[in-house]
């Protein structure tokens, strides 16, 4: 089934540890995004990539990094996790980097930093 695959589904992590959340899509979408979802705040954009080889910062990029080596993969790395990064993380994609296209979301990765 075409779509976005995220891993892990859930993870508990000690503060200070490094963590990479994986995201793979098989829809050949050019644009990809990472959001975090926190209660009462909706979804906030962390980083985005409008095409392979390019990335950009969203609303809340501090403490996170991304790479886009190819079209399909868009991993999100927490270099040194802190408790405030406890959240549910969603990877998303859209066909083109335009304003009219809807987003397709993965099932999410629930991260708890202790």
């Amino acid at each position, binding site marked *: 089934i075409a779509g*976005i695959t995220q891993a892990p589904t859930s993870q508990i992590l000690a503060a200070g540890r490094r963590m990479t959340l994986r995201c793979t899509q098989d829809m050949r979408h050019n644009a990809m*995004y990472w*959001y975090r979802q926190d209660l*009462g*705040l*909706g*979804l*906030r*954009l962390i980083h*985005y990539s*409008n095409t392979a080889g390019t990335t*950009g910062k*969203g*609303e809340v990029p501090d403490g996170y990094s991304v790479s886009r080596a190819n079209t399909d993969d868009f991993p999100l790395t927490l270099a040194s996790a802190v408790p405030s990064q406890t959240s549910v993380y*969603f990877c*998303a994609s859209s066909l083109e*980097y335009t*304003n*009219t296209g*809807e*987003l*397709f*979301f*993965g*099932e*999410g990765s629930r991260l708890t930093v202790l």
Partner: protein
Amino acid sequence: AQSVAQPEDQVNVAEGNPLTVKCTYSVSGNPYLFWYVQYPNRGLQFLLKYITGDNLVKGSYGFEAEFNKSQTSFHLKKPSALVSDSALYFCAVRDNGGGFKTIFGAGTRLFVKA
């Protein structure tokens, strides 16, 4: 700066009754507006969007939304609610002034009682 407001944290409706989930927006140019639905422990799913044209937009699962430029609103509606419609609903906006970000509202939880 663009923003989206969902004034109700929760909406309760009886099965078979019409439902409305409210959304107002603020953008500098003409808006591109979206509704997404999230079921428990799942990613967001696209419901419908307004880009241009008719103010009444029809989407998935019998949902529709009415764009009102003078009131800067984009309320989600359904003529007859189902218990299975119970979920978290997000309104989102992109502006057409060259911006790339999708800004999400905080979400409205819909409870449909049998």
